[in-house]
């Protein structure tokens, strides 16, 4: 009677969490991913401390220079410090990824559960909607939107959100539907548990994990879309620095200096690699069923 396990339950869960965290750290891909992701966050959040120059400060005499002690990654045609611009560019990427994915996650969770647990016609309608959105060639549609609305960061965000919601919503819907017919959900219903409690206490805990893993693996896609649109001059507006816009400026100068193109590409690759590694390591550890690939 003395050892009533009211407090040992969370303890056990915590212990299991620790074991998994240790497995993540022992996995070199997971470790690399974690380090790269932390670097990405830190450099974006502490950009003013990490950057060596004001990203907008012109240094005309030193324009188009290669890497020097003063300008670690060289300068552009206006003499702005490429390294500092790249660091500040990370902020745009982080902003788009963080806002875009969290909004999509919330909407995806809600819509997916609605489709999975709601009436049949609603499910069919939402499913059709998801399929239609997924069936649009994203970039091409984005171009059409930009043609009318003109480039802006908000438009990039809207595109990111609209195109990523169906992925989450479908995942949640599939999981919810599968769960809806499992015996344990039937058992909850037989007990008289209401739909809200079923969704909150018995469905959400089972879909939230895979969703976060999918979200981690979606960050590269989102960052790439932002960089891609900005590269086309259809994303952030000058003079804001984004990896895409730096790449664009560098592309136009590619015959004069290779440095901007290299300097803005490297963090882009490291970020996508980092999130991919981390996402896959998390998936392998927490939910091996999601995919047997590495």
């Amino acid at each position, binding site marked *: *009677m003395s*050892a*009533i*396990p*009211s407090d*040992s*339950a969370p303890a*056990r869960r915590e212990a299991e969490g620790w074991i998994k965290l240790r497995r993540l750290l022992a996995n070199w891909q997971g470790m690399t991913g974690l380090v790269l992701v932390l670097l990405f966050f830190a450099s974006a959040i502490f950009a003013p401390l990490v950057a060596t120059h004001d990203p907008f400060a012109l240094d005309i005499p030193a324009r188009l220079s290669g890497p020097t002690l003063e300008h670690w990654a060289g300068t552009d045609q206006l003499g702005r410090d490429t390294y500092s611009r790249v660091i500040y560019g990370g902020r745009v990427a982080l902003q788009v990824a963080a806002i875009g994915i969290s909004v999509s996650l919330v909407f995806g969770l809600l819509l997916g559960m609605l489709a999975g647990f709601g009436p049949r016609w609603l499910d069919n309608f939402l499913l059709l909607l998801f399929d239609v959105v997924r069936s649009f060639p994203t970039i091409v549609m984005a171009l059409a939107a930009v043609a009318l609305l003109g480039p802006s960061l908000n438009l990039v965000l809207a595109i990111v959100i609209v195109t990523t919601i169906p992925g989450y919503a479908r995942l949640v819907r599939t999981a919810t539907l599968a769960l809806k017919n*499992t*015996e*344990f*959900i*039937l*058992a*909850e*219903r*037989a*007990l*008289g*548990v*209401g739909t809200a*409690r079923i969704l909150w*206490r*018995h469905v959400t*805990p*089972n879909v939230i994990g895979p969703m976060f893993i999918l979200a981690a693996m979606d960050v590269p896609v989102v960052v790439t879309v932002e960089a891609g649109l900005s590269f086309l001059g259809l994303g952030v507006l000058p003079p804001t620095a984004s990896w895409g816009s730096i790449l664009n400026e560098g592309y136009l100068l590619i015959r004069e200096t290779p440095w901007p193109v290299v300097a803005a590409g490297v963090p882009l690759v490291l970020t996508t690699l980092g999130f991919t590694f981390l996402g896959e390591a998390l998936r392998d550890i927490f939910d091996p069923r999601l995919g047997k690939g590495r």
Partner: protein
Amino acid sequence: MMDAPRPDHQLGDNLVEIRDLSVTFETGRGPVRALRNVNLDVPRGRILGIVGESGSGKSTVIWAMLRLLAENGAVTGGRIDFNGRDLLQLDADALRAFRGAQAGVVFQDPMTSQIPVKSYLQQFLDIAYRQKASRAEKIAHAIAMMRRVGIPDPEQRIAQFPHQFSGGMRQRTGIAMALLMHPDLVIADEPTTALDVTMEAQVIHLLRELQREFQTTMMIVSHNLGLVAELCDEIVVMYAGEVVERGDIQSVFANPSHPYTRALIDCDPARVLERTRILPTIPGELPNLRHPPRACVFVDRCPHAFARCREEKPRLNKADEGHVAACHLLDGVRPVMHAAAPAPAQDEVVPAIAGDVAPLVAVRNLAVSFQVRGPVAALLNPGLKTSIDILVDVSLDLKPGETLGLVGESGSGKTTLGRAMLGLVKAQAGSVTFKGRELIGLGEGELRPLRQNMAMMFQDPIGSLSPRQTVKSLILEPFDVHRPASGNRDALAVRLADMVNLPRDLLARYPHQLSGGQARRVGVARALALEPDLIIADEPTAGLDVSVQGDVLNLMRRLQTEHGLTYLIISHNLPVVRHISDRLAIMYLGRIIEMGDATAIFARPAHPYTRALVDGIPRPDPTQRRRLVSIEGEVPSIARRPQGCEFNARCPHATDLCRAEMPAQQTLGDGRMVRCHYPLID
């Protein structure tokens, strides 16, 4: 290609000899020593049965033989001689020649063991690639083999794909594949476990016939003592990775000499012919195979254990003429063996249920159908039905305090009936009253307060528990939903755990950390938490080993007498339910075809289908083998119900009347309801 028919079995002439076989599986939490020094012989031309519960390592033996252990498994010692050659030393080519050509395999689940994207013809040709014959000859041979195992119209059907075959046909075809190359040895891994009772009897019969005809040697792995007793000449009993008893089947069943074998036979509900309310069990649990005991493996659960059993591993001692057992009791002085579990005490007096008591639950003309096609398909194929009837015109009463056993094969609608009674499945017509109150048509909000009085236990013990909740929050959930603020939660949880004999330290666990029996207890606790009047239990013993089944049923029985519960027990397992039921209802294709007193039905079935079910139970007694298969064929699809009596195509007594007209429900002299034109009793 193959040898001439072999002469009669001679002593010492073994096709397979396994010596000191040990297998270890590497797992995240350390190596599991699944087999330890296993020795067994398979005499040429005989059928050997390997029996054991889950964790006994019985399947591991055959996968080790075929060198198809899972990737984390490895043979760590011993040899497996086949025709005098060690299979463990074969190179890739020799191994391939052994598999398929010298040894054919019949798999447990024909649904997953046949590749879905290839036709049977292609699959047969793939197996016969090494045969020196023309394509036409190979096809002719495959067709002949399919005909031999009882596939009607094999010339056409061989071109079909697995999903176009029914379960029983698939398993028959699987047997044809195993026999295609006329192997010396046929290995069958739980060949009937995925099949229904009537199909099981047919497959047992077929295997026995084929063994005689082809003079094959067979190894049958099964958890089902009845199957082994029916089919095998020799038996090997395994427990926790060791052989505990082996020898001639008659001798072992007549005089089981290892306490485990004895207990296992006692636990088999099919063996006990008298209806008892309390089933024998084997207390305790399987030892941890990461650290297998140095002494006797069964010592912790053995009622006869003495000092030596804890110190020294017993050798295989001679128990009887033609059989040996690994028990110290056989070494030297031979003490008297008595039944393993305490003899079932005489049942407490069951309160007689008076005929005129108002029923707790009354089901009248209940009908349920499922939509199977969407509107688009319906529009395109106007001739096709868009829904199929799962339940047709079902009526039954449950009187307070009684236990009704609802029995049927897959597709009989028994699970749907249970769910429809609780409003979990929408009924299209009919009525269900609970304490006089109509349930059909009530909204979920109106049903909710009633759910305190009607609980359900689901089939899968672990799968019916929400995976991310602790046992404690699971068993307290009924209170959270219906009676929030019901006092000290910790005390409540402990009280419920004690009530179902669930160790208290399991309260902090998650469902996947429980054994099947423990999870089932959690399910019972949840069902009982609010002290309901009615419990509908869907396959309460499914997925549990024989030794644990009795445990759960005895618990349910005890709680019934303590709390005055009414049970509806849904099961495909007739021998189990009949021991705990007052009355039985037999379902076929969504109708109740016979209903009445359990003992009477079991002793003298009135409907030919009930008779087939009763006769279909393989009895764990090799002296009482059945000569005939009582019914042919399989349960027809509910989407295409036969004309007239729906059992007519399989019924040995069917007449033109049966083929034309659905029999009405009639009541026989002993108060039994039956739906047959020609009941077998008056």
